[in-house]
């Protein structure tokens, strides 16, 4: 791998990227689906998936949601 791959990835933008506001509105739906089947969630909401690949804070929120969903599933 070249030495600047990470910088290149950081600068790349995806035109499908929906932004934080829309992603946040859909995040709980996306998370429910992703907890069961992540590829299916990405396919159903490509604009959210594109955003989560680039936005650290929203990706962190998703991880928190997934952890909460999984904990719920474990307890029930």
């Amino acid at each position, binding site marked *: 791998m*070249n*030495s600047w791959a990470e910088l*290149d990835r*950081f*600068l*790349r*933008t995806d035109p499908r990227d929906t*932004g934080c506001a829309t992603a946040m509105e859909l995040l709980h739906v996306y998370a429910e689906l992703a907890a069961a089947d992540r590829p299916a969630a990405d396919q159903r909401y490509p604009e959210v998936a594109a955003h989560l690949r680039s936005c650290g804070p929203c990706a962190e929120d998703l991880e928190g949601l997934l952890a909460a969903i999984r904990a719920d599933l474990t307890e029930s």
Partner: protein
Amino acid sequence: MDNADINFYFDPLCPFAWMTSKWVRQVAAQRDYTVDWRLISLRMLNADVGYDSHFPAGYEAGRTAGLRLLRRSADSQRRAGNPAVGPGCRARILPQVPLDTADWVRLPDRFGLDPARESEWRDLAQALRQAVEEELTEHQRRIFTAIAVNGVPLDALAAELGSSRNAIYKTMFDARRKLRACLVANGYLPENPVRHS
């Protein structure tokens, strides 16, 4: 605050409470609920828990460091009142964000640029710096420099500027697109991702 509709107990260090607090704020705005933001300490609540056996390495130190955030939250609440502690508090209590200086020396660290391979990325880094100066608007330059160069968390920057995560992200998105287009046009980056077998 007496007789609030919702008493929200949280430790500013807890990401789950942080996330839930944002939903509470949305619900409160839509339903006209009042919220009393109440601080708790997970470190103290879990004082009897064996951190070594129940949590990943470093958790106890993190929770202990979180006590400092709690003190700053409590101070903020004391000075500005209840609304000062709630969604946004986690960002607000982060250290002051550097906005008017650019710490370009940290760029290699931020993006895993190996000093031993500097000859591979030196020109690219210089071209990026020049593109930041010449291609971006003043607002884009300020946001890009704070996040990409100085490593300021996006939420902390949004709080500092009285903006929103979405607005800051949108500015960053436009800046990234402009910078990459410039670097591609000048032959520093490939137009399409390089595939590695």
